[in-house]
């Protein structure tokens, strides 16, 4: 089946290549003579409309109607005028040599006529019954944005996008309405042009999404509630993000768009550590004679040594147009991003082709998208970040000798590197050469055929692929102190991912009566994921193999799905969906899951009593219910009895032979789908005069049969912990979205947008036995103390709640070392006295954006805030103790000034003293643009822009950045402040 589909694809491709050759002949249309056109604009009820924007299409030339609704404008006699007004449907009127025009604008149903991409099809926005947020190009965040997820950060209620640090191409943690799972994935499903992506890590890429050029993206449709997502069944529990790339439109003339931007990223601050002089004073006061003797004379600011001002560039060229029946878009892009941590760099070359030919008298619509990118990463050794915070500031950067690359290092009495001392941060950076090339292509061909004999029926076939190949090599020379005892390191790794997709559905849409419209869809989907990796680690000279671990795995999903939409009188909308998913990750008996949903919407504004309201232009009540599943458990064969061979470094000697051992694996034959039931009530509203629109949603998500790794009754399985369906988790919350068109005048507009989300996450069950004495699952590993954790999943508390000891303070408010509240009163301070303290997830998060235009100038900003999120300051807890300056084995390590407050001698990792409120408000983005208008003799348009990202943060948190996904702050690659200048030319 798959093969025959590719044949179809191949044939089409040949034909399209011919078309592409012809495009070169397309020329630019020339302008006709200008004439003066005047006229009047009114509403359908006859009242005049002042302030209507009148624009000559395809230009920036425009005017506005006066108080009586009159306008006058000079325009080419063959031009088209565009009339637009908030709350009204825009209208295009061709001048056709007329000098007098009368225009009637219809009441706003403009946005409502918009079509929104949903799973397996599209829907008119006004017919939506689910909670779906749509963000398009105009609303995207601006600046030096290397990965798509950053385009919409802060823009959507209920969607939290937390950057995972500032490395080039680094991704984000995306959470839609909190996490529905504990051990299974909490990432939303991302669907690009109909191809669902899998969540697996792409080796050699900072983030799988970094292989997609954000400039190619037209829109994000974020499906939040189950009635919208359930059509994706088993992968929809955490929401679905539908990404649509830019495409040519029917009848378009060829347009070329060139954009170029250059940016510089600067560090926003440094971890507060002692200076060389302060450190000398500290050691001289508290240190032993030996420690004092280790002090150097330098004053090195190690953090300054490892960071730099990072210059990046981004260039994109796209050509959009239509050739006969084939709209097209072709683009190429090149991004070169330097990280502020020295040696980190990402270079991405990307290309995309989108063709949407209409054939067979417009009955066959073909949508072909091919995106390809090649990324070259150079990863910095991020260990340098922590090393820079703790390396002795009294030591110089360079030792003055040749040993260890010339970098100053802690050595043993015999001159060999002290293996457990902190390494020279600059040595870590400069003596690590860690590069990877990743090529990825995502493509699909969608054939949408409207039956000739039955135009109400469409058949849609979508074949797609997502393939990537990674080649990485990491070299650490034998002379580097970090790998001295192993003779350096040379690791070569590869990864091949091949994901295949085939979807087929039939769609039947019919107006049964004048007032009743049905839309039925039924389909089938097949998706297969293959992933194979190799990793070979040797010493630099390649004399011995330290590790050789190839791995290959595959999983498959087969689904059947259907949807029924019913629209009665445009007032009552009903949606039912049903999906049945089969996953190769479960045993035959548990393989299939059924995921239904139902939703109802009532368009109150269409009711007679509101229809003629001059206040309310839109009012819609939505109620939805749906069940979604989860099978992304990170293991493909957790249900199957199997044996795993050991690598060459984990052999066992028996006699004189080393045997690769075979390990019988623990398994749980009974694992099955995790299920999430979502209920949603929402209200969409728009007020005409107040120019205010928005929506409010209340949701409740209950996940049961939670796939959780739990302790096994000892002896009953070949493991101590196993993935089992136990427990439940609950998320409930409220989302508010408001958009206000504050000012709308000819030369001055101001739009404000605000969104806020309140989310409450609580574990309601964790084990099959539901033992009240069971504390929970310890999670959240911290640095300092091997295997120490600071968080816990417990019943009755949010997932990953902090689990800490309650610090006792003396009369002066100073924490008393090692003294904690004996909460259970048994006279001992044990883990039984620890308590649940807050959660790393914010209770409330908001986004606020403003966008203004004044004549040719535009400007705006995006503010984002999190409230009620707590952070464990792991840097303070490890480097804020006197013991920390007594580095390992006769070395010294820098400490943070906090040690002078606490004077803690030994680490108090579990003290709640290190918990801090991480609430913040951040200006993510501020931008200004200037429209240069026509350049090059009127043939081209140009726009200049300037953007600042990460403008400021307001927070009480004392560390570098309060926004820490997971809530444990420990030497994370800092997010830079980035200044970008851009130029966009269209012709």
């Amino acid at each position, binding site marked *: *089946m798959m093969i025959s589909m590719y044949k179809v694809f191949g044939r089409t491709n040949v034909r399209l290549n011919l078309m592409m050759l012809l495009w070169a002949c397309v020329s630019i249309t020339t302008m006709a003579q200008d004439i003066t056109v005047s006229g009047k604009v009114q509403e359908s009820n006859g009242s005049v409309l002042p302030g209507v924007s009148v624009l000559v299409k395809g230009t920036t030339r425009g005017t506005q109607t006066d108080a009586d609704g009159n306008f006058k404008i000079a325009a080419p006699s063959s031009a088209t005028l565009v009339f637009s007004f908030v709350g009204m449907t825009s209208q295009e009127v061709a001048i056709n040599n007329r000098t007098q025009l009368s225009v009637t604008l219809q009441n706003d149903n403009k946005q409502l006529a918009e079509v929104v991409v949903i799973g397996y099809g599209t829907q008119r926005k006004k017919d939506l019954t689910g909670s779906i947020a749509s963000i398009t190009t105009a609303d995207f965040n601006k600046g030096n944005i290397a990965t798509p997820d950053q385009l919409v950060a802060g823009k959507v209620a209920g969607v939290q996008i937390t950057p995972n640090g500032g490395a080039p191409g680094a991704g984000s943690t995306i959470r839609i309405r909190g996490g529905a799972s504990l051990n299974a994935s909490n990432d939303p499903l991302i669907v690009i042009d109909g191809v669902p992506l899998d969540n697996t890590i792409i080796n050699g890429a900072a983030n799988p999404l970094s292989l997609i050029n954000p400039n190619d993206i037209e829109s994000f449709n974020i499906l939040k509630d189950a009635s919208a997502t359930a059509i994706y069944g088993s992968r929809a529990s955490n929401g679905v993000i539908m990404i649509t790339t830019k495409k040519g439109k029917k009848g378009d003339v060829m347009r070329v768009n060139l954009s170029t931007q250059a940016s510089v990223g600067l560090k926003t601050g440094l971890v507060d550590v002692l200076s060389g002089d302060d450190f000398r004073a500290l050691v001289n006061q508290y240190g032993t004679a030996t420690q004092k003797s280790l002090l150097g004379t330098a004053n090195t600011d190690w953090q300054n040594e490892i960071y730099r001002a990072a210059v990046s560039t981004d260039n994109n060229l796209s050509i959009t147009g239509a050739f006969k029946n084939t709209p097209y878009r072709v683009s190429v892009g090149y991004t070169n991003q330097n990280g502020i941590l020295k040696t980190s760099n990402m270079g991405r070359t990307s290309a995309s082709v989108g063709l949407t030919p209409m054939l067979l008298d417009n009955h066959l619509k073909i949508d072909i998208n091919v995106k390809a990118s090649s990324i070259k990463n150079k990863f910095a050794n991020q260990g340098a970040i922590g090393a820079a915070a703790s390396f002795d500031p009294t030591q110089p950067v360079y030792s003055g000798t040749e040993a260890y690359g010339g970098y100053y290092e802690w050595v*043993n009495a015999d001159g*060999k590197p002290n293996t457990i001392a902190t390494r020279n941060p600059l040595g870590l950076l400069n003596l690590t050469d860690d590069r990877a090339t990743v090529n990825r292509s995502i493509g699909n061909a969608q054939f949408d055929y409207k039956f000739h004999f039955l135009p109400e029926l469409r058949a849609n076939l979508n074949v797609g692929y997502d393939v990537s190949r990674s080649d990485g090599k990491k070299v650490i020379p034998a002379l580097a102190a970090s790998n001295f005892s192993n003779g350096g390191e040379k690791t070569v790794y590869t990864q091949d991912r091949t994901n295949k997709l085939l979807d087929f559905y039939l769609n039947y849409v019919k107006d049964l009566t004048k007032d009743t419209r049905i839309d039925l869809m039924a389909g089938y989907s*097949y998706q297969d994921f293959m992933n194979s990796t190799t990793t070979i680690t040797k010493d630099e000279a390649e004399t011995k193999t330290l590790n050789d671990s190839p791995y290959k795995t595959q999983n498959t999903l087969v689904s059947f799905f259907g949807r029924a939409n019913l629209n009665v009188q445009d007032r009552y909308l009903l949606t039912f969906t049903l999906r049945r998913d089969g996953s190769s990750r479960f045993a035959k008996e548990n393989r299939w899951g059924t995921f239904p949903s139902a939703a109802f919407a009532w368009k109150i504004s269409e009711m007679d009593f509101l229809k003629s309201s001059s206040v309310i232009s839109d009012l819609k009540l939505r109620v939805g219910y749906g069940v979604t599943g989860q099978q992304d458990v990170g293991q493909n064969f957790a249900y199957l009895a199997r044996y795993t061979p050991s690598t060459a470094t984990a052999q066992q000697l028996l006699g004189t032979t080393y045997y690769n051992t075979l390990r019988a694996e623990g398994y749980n034959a009974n694992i099955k789908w995790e299920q999430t039931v979502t209920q949603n009530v929402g209200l969409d509203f728009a007020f005409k005069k107040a120019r205010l629109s928005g929506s409010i949603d209340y949701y409740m998500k209950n996940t049961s049969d939670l796939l959780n790794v*739990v302790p096994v009754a000892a002896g009953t399985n070949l493991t101590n912990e196993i993935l089992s369906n136990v427990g439940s988790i609950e998320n409930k919350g409220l989302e508010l979205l408001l958009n206000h068109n504050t000012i709308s005048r000819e030369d001055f507009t101001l739009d404000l947008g605000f969104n806020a989300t309140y989310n409450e996450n609580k574990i309601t069950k964790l084990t099959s036995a539901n033992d009240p004495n069971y504390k929970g699952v310890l999670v959240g590993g911290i640095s300092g103390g091997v295997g120490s954790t600071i968080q816990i999943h417990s019943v009755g508390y949010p997932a990953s709640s902090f689990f800490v000891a309650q610090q006792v303070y003396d009369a002066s408010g100073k924490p008393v070392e090692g003294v904690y509240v004996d909460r259970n009163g048994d006279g001992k301070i044990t883990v039984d006295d620890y308590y649940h303290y807050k959660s790393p997830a914010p209770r409330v998060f908001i986004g606020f954006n403003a966008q203004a235009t004044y004549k040719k100038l535009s400007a705006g900003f995006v503010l984002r805030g999190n409230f009620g999120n707590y952070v464990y300051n792991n840097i303070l807890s490890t480097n804020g103790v006197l013991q920390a300056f007594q580095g390992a084995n006769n070395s010294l390590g820098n400490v943070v000034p906090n040690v002078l407050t606490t004077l803690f001698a030994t680490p108090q990792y579990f003290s709640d003293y290190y918990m801090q409120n991480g609430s913040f408000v951040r200006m993510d983005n501020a931008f200004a643009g200037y429209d240069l208008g026509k350049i090059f003799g009127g043939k081209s348009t140009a726009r200049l822009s300037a953007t600042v990202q990460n403008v400021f943060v307001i927070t009480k948190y004392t560390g570098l950045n309060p926004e820490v996904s997971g809530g444990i702050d420990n030497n994370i690659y800092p997010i830079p402040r980035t200044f970008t200048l851009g130029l966009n030319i269209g012709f």
Partner: protein
Amino acid sequence: MKHFISKNTVLGGLVLTLSMSSCIKDLDRQPFNEVTSATVYNDPAAYKQVAAKLYAGMMLTGQQGPAGDDRTKDIKGMDEGFSSYLRNYWYLQVLPTDEAVIAWSDAGLPEINYMKWSSNNAFIRGFYNRVFYQIASCNEFIRETSDAKLNERGVSGTILTETKALRAEARFLRALSYWHALDLFGGNVPFVTENDAVGSAPPKQTNAKSLFEYIESELKAIDGELVEARKNEYARADKAAAWMLLAKLYLNAEAQGQGNRYADAATYAKKVIDAGYSLQTKYEDLFKADNNTSTEVIWALAADGTRSQTWGGMTFLCHAPVGGSMPASAYGIDGGWGGVRVTPSFVKLFADPTGKTDKRAMFYTDGQKLEINELSTFTDGYAMPKFKNVTSAGKVGSNLSHPDTDFPMFRLADAYLIYAEAAARGAGDKALALDYVNKIRARAYGSAAGNITSSELTPDFVLAERARELSWEGSRRTDLIRYGKFTGASYLWAWKGGVKDGAGVQDYLKIFPLPSTDLTANPNLVQNTGY
């Protein structure tokens, strides 16, 4: 036209149906790297590879050395380097005694030193999980090598003979782990055998008496199937290993409430002694990188710097005791971890701690204070570089991070001392016992200068001698319990009870608590008294 379409539709429908059913078959995916249990034994070589894992389970931590990821490590939810059987056994047998303190502040680790553990302690849980992981793995192998299954798969000839021996060894390893469960958890543990299938219902809790009898019967039952003493391949258990375990079982029977069995201890120790082992000439060579050649070792856990790597096991034992001004390269390692030292009480067991008379006093004192004011300060307390990654000829091991040095689980000197203790307690030939003890003393002193007289051969002397001879080899806790000195206040050492000079602790601490995780997972379990 209509005819054409319907034909096409039928054809299309047929193709679609066929493709769908074949796609549904695609859901039966099979792993590539792993072998399914259904097919693994199609290759008879698999028997030995699976058995090798049972041995590897005593020291290594996963299928990728020295450490891999969640998929490759054996014990989940724990730092892999900490999850080694040997390392956890060592922690629980050595750290709560006068033999050692550890500087690290990993959550739960100082509590082992202080004897202030609770059922949430990560290291107790880690060891318990190891014990039952090992038992479950042995059960799987014993199940898969039943006579019926071997017959069914047509296994014959030398492979059949060897597989049966390996099966007996799996029963030995299982008995060893159950003995650890008896000794450390009081025997009040879940009981599973090869008759309990993977994924079965939570097992019933057994008790000291039943478990004692089970271990005894198992070790006796396999005596006929195990390879003769000193005739098996290196690092595999033979009859002598089983006798040694029986001797230890009987020696501790009384302390575990199973009656006086010192005579049986003497009998089995004597069987070992008479099997032809001889003392290593130089004591220190027993703990060096070429100790696989030792004539004294009855059964060792094999380490290898390049092929058997782990951060637990011998990597821990060679690195953790090195710190301060100690020259790491002299011990064949790339640097110390600055962790483990001995307490002053242990040093006092030697009349002359310099090592000049009794060479077993292997202390490193340069820059080290005798007293331990701070657990976390490495230079508080004498260091003891006993295990070294250097051969007896002074050659450094194959890898500076991971030693080639093997861990001697059972060795002849231990058998001598078991016999001596039984005799001192009145259940053996005292003259013979004196001869055994003086052999050990003569090696330690390099002459007869340290020899003792018959009247000096008291149970208390043997306890002290065991500490001197078998220090850090994992038997001190069991020994102190046997003498009633582990708990209570009759014998104190630095940081016992969490106090610098030592404080008495309650008797319930003789056995460790069952980890709270298993009490939750298995409702049949009742916690040990006191916890």
